[in-house]
């Protein structure tokens, strides 16, 4: 993808290539500094949630669901996934990311291939399960909408549908893969 755009740029506008790349990495640096500030706040709060034992309670509450969806059996991993999903639902994706990364590390089996639970976590995060699209509502309100919140219902319906489709698809593909593997062994 990068090579293709570089080749096109070579023909269209060769002088822009380096400056564009540096511009983009400057943007990335700015984003990371911003993220760092955001993570300080969220990781601080998350440590409190952990230390007070609330995260274990949350994990216990979500355990049946997580077990069914992720097929994991490890209280530490369950806790991280529970925190990640709760943060997503609250619409604070920035708090979800650190937990997601830790959960991915806990799920990693060092085979170099993504396993079922890792793919599930990425797909669930990628289909966005937030209950309140606060940023979008805010943008819409500032653009002068008469009822900025009237997109909540359709957003909720779509988001729930795609998340369920994602979960079912990952489960379905995993079953297919097992079948194919089983046949190869025969």
């Amino acid at each position: 993808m990068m090579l293709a755009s570089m080749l096109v740029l070579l023909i269209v506008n060769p002088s822009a290539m380096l400056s564009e790349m540096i511009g983009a990495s400057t943007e990335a640096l700015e984003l990371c500094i911003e993220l760092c500030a955001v993570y300080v706040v969220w990781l601080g709060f998350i440590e409190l949630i952990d230390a007070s034992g609330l995260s274990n309670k949350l994990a216990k509450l979500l355990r049946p669901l997580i077990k069914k969806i992720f097929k994991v059996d490890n209280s530490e991993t369950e806790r991280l996934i529970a925190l990640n999903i709760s943060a997503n639902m609250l619409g604070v994706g920035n708090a979800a990311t650190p937990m997601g990364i830790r959960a991915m590390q806990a799920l990693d089996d060092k085979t170099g291939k993504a396993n079922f639970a890792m793919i599930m976590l990425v797909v669930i995060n990628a289909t966005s399960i937030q209950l309140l699209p606060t940023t979008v509502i805010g943008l819409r309100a500032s653009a002068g909408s008469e009822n900025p919140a009237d997109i909540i219902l359709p957003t909720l319906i779509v988001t729930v549908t795609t998340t369920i489709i994602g979960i079912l698809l990952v489960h379905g593909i995993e079953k297919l893969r097992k079948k194919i593997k089983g046949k190869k062994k025969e």
Partner: protein
Amino acid sequence: MSAYILPILFILLFIYCIYKRLNTYDHFVKGAKGAIKLVVDIFPFIASIMIAVALLRVSGITSWLTQLLSPIFNALGVPPELTELVLLRPFTGSGSYALLEDVLVTYGADSYISRCACVIMGCSETIFYVATVYFSQTKVKKLLYAIPVALLCSIVGTILACLLCRVI
């Protein structure tokens, strides 16, 4: 309403921690310590994907793709005005929010196109960014079917969003 949710949760958390006799300050600092290391670890990955996106845009490949895909999206019920938004959404959060603002201003916040755009933004995520960052700290080299499934869900979501906005 929604503005109160997080602050109230924070306050409840602090009250609960004090009730549990925890040293809130020490624990907060301990957690916050991890922030810089985390950002340093993920920075190269974020930078690489942002460079790739910038090259895609400036080389004109995205606008070319937009033209190519508009009729297909239109046939699926997605307004052609939103093709660029739908295309960029999986790659960049800030870029797609900027496009959303454009759409809101150009077509009016309460128009059908704007409402579609809002629902699409609300129910989708920056898939490539999420996958890059999440897998960045693992040993995984093969993502298998993670991205195709996520993209498929996103496309279904986009079509459903435009359909629902006609009814609701």
